């Protein structure tokens, strides 16, 4: 198959299909499903269909009406996917929205909003999130810079910290803009399960696992642990059960 490359500068639209490189600078619209080796957009881009790409870069506003399937992806600004995202490696900065996310490595800075589940191998997030279903990963690392919510969190190692926001400059301003200055740093979940769990600023009905550390700002209804439990002064654990 011949590799077609296409570039939109300014404003334009392209038909879906199979491409080598697709570049959009300015404002671009893709009509139909698109398969590309490389997809790069700066400005505003919209795919009216599914997008499958080896490499994906979006800066500015990106919207996909279908599913997004990537090997490697990076988005800065606003990413909206009506369907599900599947990515081996995905780095997000800014605000991102999708119905569901599966894949390997997910790193996000900013806010993430997912209707259903996020199931990846590694989940690293600094900021805030809203996950309607399950957040599951071998490693879940969260630095809270706002409100975070998930129905359930499960995995091997789960670490949640209240962010220090000692960052200067642009990132700090951006986070302030996204979450509102002085917004509450807090994670709320029904159930958190893992072999190793360290929590701060978390409210949960049930935390269950092997080695558990409940840090400052936590309020947990019930902790069930099999190995160790540490509760920091100031944290509230209503009920502890070993075994």
């Amino acid at each position, binding site marked *: 198959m011949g590799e077609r490359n296409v570039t939109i500068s300014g404003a334009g639209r392209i038909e879906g299909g199979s491409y080598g490189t697709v570049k959009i600078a300015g404002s671009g619209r893709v009509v139909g499903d698109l398969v590309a080796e490389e997809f790069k957009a700066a400005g505003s881009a919209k795919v009216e269909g599914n997008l499958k790409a080896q490499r994906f870069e979006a800066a500015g506003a990106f919207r996909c009406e279908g599913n997004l399937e990537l090997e490697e992806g990076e988005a800065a600004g606003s990413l909206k996917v009506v369907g599900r995202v599947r990515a081996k490696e995905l780095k997000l900065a800014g605000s991102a929205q999708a119905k569901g996310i599966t894949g390997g490595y997910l790193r996000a800075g900013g806010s993430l909003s997912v209707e259903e589940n996020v199931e990846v191998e590694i989940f690293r997030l600094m900021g805030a999130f809203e996950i309607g279903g399950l957040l*599951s*990963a071998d490693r879940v690392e969260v630095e809270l810079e706002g409100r975070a919510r998930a129905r359930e969190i*499960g995995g*091997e*190692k789960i670490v949640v910290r209240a962010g220090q926001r000692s960052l200067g400059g642009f990132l700090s301003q951006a986070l302030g803009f996204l979450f509102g200055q002085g917004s509450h740093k807090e994670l709320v979940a029904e159930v958190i*399960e*893992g072999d190793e769990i360290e929590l701060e600023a978390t409210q949960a*009905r049930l935390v269950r696992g092997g080695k558990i550390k409940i840090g400052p700002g936590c309020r947990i209804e019930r902790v069930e642990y099999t190995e160790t439990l540490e509760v920091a002064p100031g944290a509230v654990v209503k009920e502890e059960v070993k075994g």
Partner: protein
Amino acid sequence: MEQPEELIPKKEVLRLTGISYGQLYRWKRLGLIPEAWFIRRSTFTGQETFFPREKILKRIADILRLKDEYPLEELVRLLSPEVVPTEVAHLDPLALAPIGPEGRELLWKSGEYAFSELVALACGAEAIRRGAKPGEARLLVEVVRRAEEALRAPTDLSALLAEKTVEREGLLLRAPLALVGREPLLLDPECRIKVRLDLEKVVEGVKLALGGEGRG
């Protein structure tokens, strides 16, 4: 009536099998443990996740037994009922244990059998092993063959072989019937169920047999 499936809480699964939370969630992500088996129920302490007891314990035992032998991705293909091999074209179905010599009378071609056709044969052969007549077993094969789409999500899917008895003016009529559907399946009281097969188990059995063969 069959007993409703016995459920087991998640915590108990971990305690009985010795697996970690990390493993459980990883295997779920990979599709080794189907989404349909995670059953959320309210308890006095809030929502809790339960599993069908027999299925989950068998699946975890299978994974633990096979995981050093196969890479995890390969195990997904072998075990997960939701991943159906589409490219199967088998020339000698009788060589597969779930079908075996009982399947001889059920074969309808000498060519290549697709995955759903092998599952259909396995159902028919199992029915014969449980006392069904070849004619009845053939009915079952016919209906399962046509359920190719449904076989992709076989949780709670059953194949039934029943017999309907009708009495009219002193004449007793008996007719066999076969059907595939999702539990709970209800039949009218004139029907007697002779064989009830859990298609999830049959699919799994055929997959394992195919996997074992592939390794020669």
